[in-house]
């Protein structure tokens, strides 16, 4: 038990060390240049630009995941990406709307959006555009779907924690991009959204929106750790069979 804990601790320390190494060994731009193309992110900025140029509103849904639970990772990434995407969307004629199904994420998201509005000197028009639309998954979905009725949302980005109800939310705008950490949600969003992220891609949103150098560094470290894990699995499986014995 203690040995397993020690191995786990060494794993996390190694991961952290690699992030620090990448942060100081590479230029931030180099880290971002290494990123492979993900259609959702290239399409997202193009879609945002076209929507803003046409003067249509945009909606950013942060999901209903709480910072305290399992969905905390996607909620944090969503908040971080929100800063970058919100800054971009603020240049348009129409203020972006944002929604969350969790009280704390709502407060933090409001802070992000209101700060951006003040920085752009548009506080009078664009303050308080963050809404909490429901606390249960389905309540949140139903509440968020009321937005297009009032504002003809043209583009929506679902980035955070969504389950099967994400499929319903994908109907909220003509163009919808979806990303969630929930496996059922990922399958549903893949079928229903114009572009969707699969697997851990949702947790890389910070790096792809260039939210900060640490995001690029941690993604590089994550790739190194992935290869280490693959190597361990490939070497560990035959070793386990030889040392412990295979079969049922």
């Amino acid at each position, binding site marked *: 038990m*203690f040995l397993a*804990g020690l191995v786990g*601790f060494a794993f*996390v320390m190694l*991961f*952290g060390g690699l*992030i620090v190494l990448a942060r100081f060994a590479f230029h931030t731009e180099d880290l971002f240049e290494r990123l492979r193309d993900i259609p959702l992110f290239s399409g997202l900025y193009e879609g945002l630009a076209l929507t803003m140029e046409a003067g249509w509103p945009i909606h950013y849904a942060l999901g209903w995941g709480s*910072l*305290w639970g399992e969905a905390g*990772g996607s909620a*944090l*990434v969503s*908040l*971080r990406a929100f800063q970058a995407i919100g800054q971009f969307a603020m240049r348009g004629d129409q203020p972006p709307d944002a929604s969350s199904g969790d*009280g*704390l994420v*709502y*407060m*933090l998201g*409001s*802070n*992000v959006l209101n*700060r951006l509005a003040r920085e752009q000197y548009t506080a009078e028009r664009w303050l*308080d555009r963050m809404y*909490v639309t429901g606390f*249960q*998954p*389905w*309540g949140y*979905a*139903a509440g968020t779907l*009321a937005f297009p009725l*009032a*504002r003809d949302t043209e583009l929506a980005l679902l980035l955070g924690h969504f389950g*099967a*109800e994400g*499929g*319903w939310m*994908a*109907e909220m705008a003509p163009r919808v991009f979806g990303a969630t*950490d929930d*496996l059922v949600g*990922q399958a549903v969003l893949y*079928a*229903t959204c114009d572009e969707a992220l*699969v*697997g*851990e891609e*949702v*947790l890389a949103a*910070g790096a792809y929106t260039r939210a*900060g150098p*640490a*995001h690029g560094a*941690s993604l590089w*470290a*994550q790739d190194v*750790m*992935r290869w280490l*894990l693959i190597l361990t699995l490939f070497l560990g499986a035959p070793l386990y069979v030889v040392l412990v014995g295979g079969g049922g």
Partner: protein
Amino acid sequence: MRRSFPIAVAVGVGSIVLMTWFLPLPVLEGLRWMFLDWSVLLTGVALVMAFFYFLHTQWRLIRRRQNGWGYRILVVLTATGTFAWMMFDPTPRTASWMMTYVLIPGGVSLLGLLAVVLTYRGLWMVFQRGGGWGWLFFLTVAVVLAVDTFQATQGPLPWTSVVSGWLEGVVVRAGVRGLLLGMALGFVATGLRVLSGADRPFEE
């Protein structure tokens, strides 16, 4: 100092809790439970704060007569009414009534609608996005699984059970494990960013 103090506190407390998770040393165990107890208390306070912040924001929008202000009055009245009701009758019976007669019926009706949306979008995906052999694979899997589900009540078609069992037991399980391993790495990276103070949702 105003900014770095909360970051230092968050990083320090987070590091201790993480360390005790892996290395359950008796010296640190007491600290870990104390911090976790505090976090539960803070979660409760944060929820109450979020509720009042929500009411404050809605009231500001109503006063400005912004788009949808009538709807907002309804939201504020419902939220305040529910809050007051729960305060005066905080028994599980009240919460259970809300769940049984408001939230669950609403959720189930939306789930029914989702079946229609998914069927339509599944076909849309096959014809719009399914280049190459992808669409054929998708349709075959969908038909085999549908036949297998059907035969469970109508009669034996053994080969579909074998195929669907293999799909669920081997293909799906392997795919899910691969996805979960990747996501676990992503979660660790996110946690380390917060722990090192690089991600600061608490800063604003």
